[in-house]
């Protein structure tokens, strides 16, 4: 096993993959959250502003999903093959959600008719909710485990996806994105819309905290393989403590009007959540709920050491570049949204 700085390549790639997925959840999370509350905004002008708040960045944010897909395919092809063929139907629905979100954003502003815009508003809102829920459902199932046969292929049927735990994760994901998106919009809006977003941000924070607490309690009580890491090494409890601090900081910053810090806190919350999931499932990528020996791990699913090395080099060159121009784009469009003739 080849290593770099004391960790083997597979662990490094697991970290890279986790980083990309966290990046996706943080970045597209606020787009999806903003979309999932779209219909709560009543005025045409408010809806336009909300859509243009994510307008220049949502596409770049979705790239993280593409990179994540490539990262999984390249680094852990066995996991890529097993996960997407197992989640065939939910994944197709997730994809449809992505298509409809993209075209709703693209098409909505192209016609002035009221019925046209209202139709796309509904499509957009539903698409974002569907994306958040299906993403959460799949993440929940990956963590909870699905039945796998000895060839590391899915051995259940679609009913096996609907355990209480994945459903709870799905709802928590939606709540998390709603909170994150509402805070983002608060940061980017003014006047009455801003007041409304402020209120929504608070409410969604409560929604998220409730669903998160319920899911966590359920995990601790009923799913030993997702809590034994924490029970064994108490030092890890630092993570949930940090997360509670981050969550607690959100309403505090909102109250003070420091939306950037509130947004940062909710971004940190998302990252910590995913880190906790990663700690719990490591070294598994897909846990076999029927027979632990059939599980897919970062070692039995991995590409060759040579490919791992190439991938790490690609990531080392690519990541700073992506970070640089992402920062440049966000910096260009910072501040409150102003509609102009190029807006949606």
């Amino acid at each position, binding site marked *: 096993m080849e290593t770099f700085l004391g960790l083997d390549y597979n662990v490094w790639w697991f970290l890279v993959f986790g980083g990309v997925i966290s990046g996706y959840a943080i970045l597209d999370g606020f787009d999806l959250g903003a979309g999932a509350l779209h219909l709560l905004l009543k005025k*045409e002008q408010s809806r336009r502003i909300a859509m243009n708040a994510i*307008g*220049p*960045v949502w*596409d*770049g944010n*979705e*790239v993280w*999903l*593409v*990179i994540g*897909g*490539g*990262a999984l*395919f*390249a680094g*852990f*092809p*066995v996991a*890529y*093959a*097993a996960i*997407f*063929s*197992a989640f*065939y*139907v939910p*994944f*197709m629905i997730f*994809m*449809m959600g*992505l*298509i409809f979100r*993209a*075209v709703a954003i*693209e*098409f909505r502003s*192209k016609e*002035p008719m009221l019925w046209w815009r209202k139709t796309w508003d509904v499509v957009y809102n539903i698409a974002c909710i569907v994306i958040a829920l299906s993403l959460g459902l799949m993440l929940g199932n990956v963590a909870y485990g699905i039945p796998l046969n000895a*060839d590391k*292929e*899915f*051995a259940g049927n679609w009913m096996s996806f609907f355990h209480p735990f994945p459903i709870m994760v799905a709802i928590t994901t939606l709540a998390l994105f709603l909170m994150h998106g509402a805070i983002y919009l608060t940061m980017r809006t003014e006047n009455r819309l801003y007041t409304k977003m402020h209120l929504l941000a608070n409410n969604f924070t409560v929604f998220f905290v409730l669903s998160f607490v319920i899911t966590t309690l359920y995990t601790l009580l009923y799913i030993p393989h997702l809590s034994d890491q924490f029970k064994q090494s108490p030092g890890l409890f630092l993570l949930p403590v940090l997360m509670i601090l981050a969550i607690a900081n959100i309403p505090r910053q909102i109250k003070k009007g420091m939306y950037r810090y509130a947004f940062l806190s909710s971004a940190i919350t998302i990252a910590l959540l995913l880190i906790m999931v990663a700690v719990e499932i490591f070294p598994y990528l897909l846990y076999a709920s029927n027979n632990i020996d059939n599980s897919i791990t970062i070692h039995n699913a991995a*590409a*060759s050491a*040579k*490919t791992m090395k*190439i991938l790490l080099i*690609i990531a080392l060159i*690519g990541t700073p*570049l*992506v970070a640089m*121009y*992402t920062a440049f*784009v966000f910096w*260009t*469009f910072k501040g409150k949204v102003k509609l*102009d*003739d*190029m807006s949606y």
Partner: protein
Amino acid sequence: MDVEVLSRIQFAFTVAFHYIYPPLSIGLGLLLVIMEGMYLKTGRKIYEDATRFWIKIFALIFGIGVATGIIMEFEFGTNWATYSKYVGDIFGSALAAEGIFAFALESGFLGILIFGWNRVSSKVHFFSTIMVFFGSLFSAIWIVVANSWQQTPAGYHIVGEGMNARAEITDFWAMVFNPSSVDRLTHVWIGAFLSGAFLVLSVNAYYILRKRHLEIARPSFKLALIVATACSLLQLVAGHHSADGVAKNQPAKLAALEGHYDTLARADMFLLGYVNNKTQEVRGLKIPGGLSLLLYGNFHEPVKGLNAFPADERPKQINAIFQVYHIMVACGIAMIALTLFAVWQWRRNRLFETKWLLWLFVFSVLLPQIANQAGWFAAEMGRQPWVVYGLLKTSDALSKTVTANQVLFSLIMFTIVYLLLLVLFLYLLNRKIKHGPVSDHVQEELEESSKRNNPIMQQ
């Protein structure tokens, strides 16, 4: 129908639909760079208006390209799990490189390209346009590399046996520069430039015929005509190189392209024709011995025929492959003829007087589209029954856990959604074209006056 047929139909359908858009993005990207460059150099407003107009069309095309493109990345996993395991080591790294080097660059700067006109300086905007164009070119590199590796595998070795066998990289650069990637990449790039150039030609020909926006339409038409002429001619060279490569690396595919069954028979080249798959005869208009001439420079050198390959190692749908290949070639020749004739008319100062020629250009937007699609069908069908040439059969590459019903469900869903997308796309494209490259202030005034007559819009 079984899972294999359904999965192949779904993949072909989703990728063919997707491939309407990326070539247009690449080609329009090139023209945007040229137009905006002209604007910066001359400072003339017509170039600014043209650039801003095509950016809006670019945004529409790019949006659908992304939405349909993400599907492709995951379809390998959903429908072709065994394939994914087999090639993940190689194909996956090309895909990961595409995401991080190309797609991120393109999508990142796209925001500035579309929304940044009033936010950044004109030089920074021009830089963003170039970056978006480069991003799309880089995308093509990695995707074509991945596909070319399937056609002509190199830089790998096989590890494991039976169902656990898979290809692993031994030499990254040999994988990237496998025998067909450079030829095929140039072929794909030029095909994409043609798509963009002919779209610009078509729209501007329409304006000229309608006597609208003439001060913008005429110079834009000329710019696009230069690009289109150069690219049509270059494509002849690139296409020829590709065919040479196919003859060398994938002889069964080459034989299928011309319906050539018998090695000992004279190797003809057909202009058009029909292959009878049963009697192994081809009827049609041909150049006797033309295939030998094309490949070896004489009329009699034998070319390996389909019968020289075992029945389960050569493609079956010979007539279909023959037809798509010849459709591609015909479109290519039509583009050369059309652009050369237009250039000649230009030299005689009669370019914009010949009405029928302009009408031909209005519809010529379909030529590169058809050629691109037909060419890819020829390339992919000609590779059958292999998914990775000589290594892995398509029938062995499926997801074993996915059922026919699931694929049928997703195929029906894709069909409905994509048809809807296509209708909306054409509708909006048409609207934008009808709207034309006028600055939005003019348009806003028009809208204002229509609002006054429309009580709903006053809310």
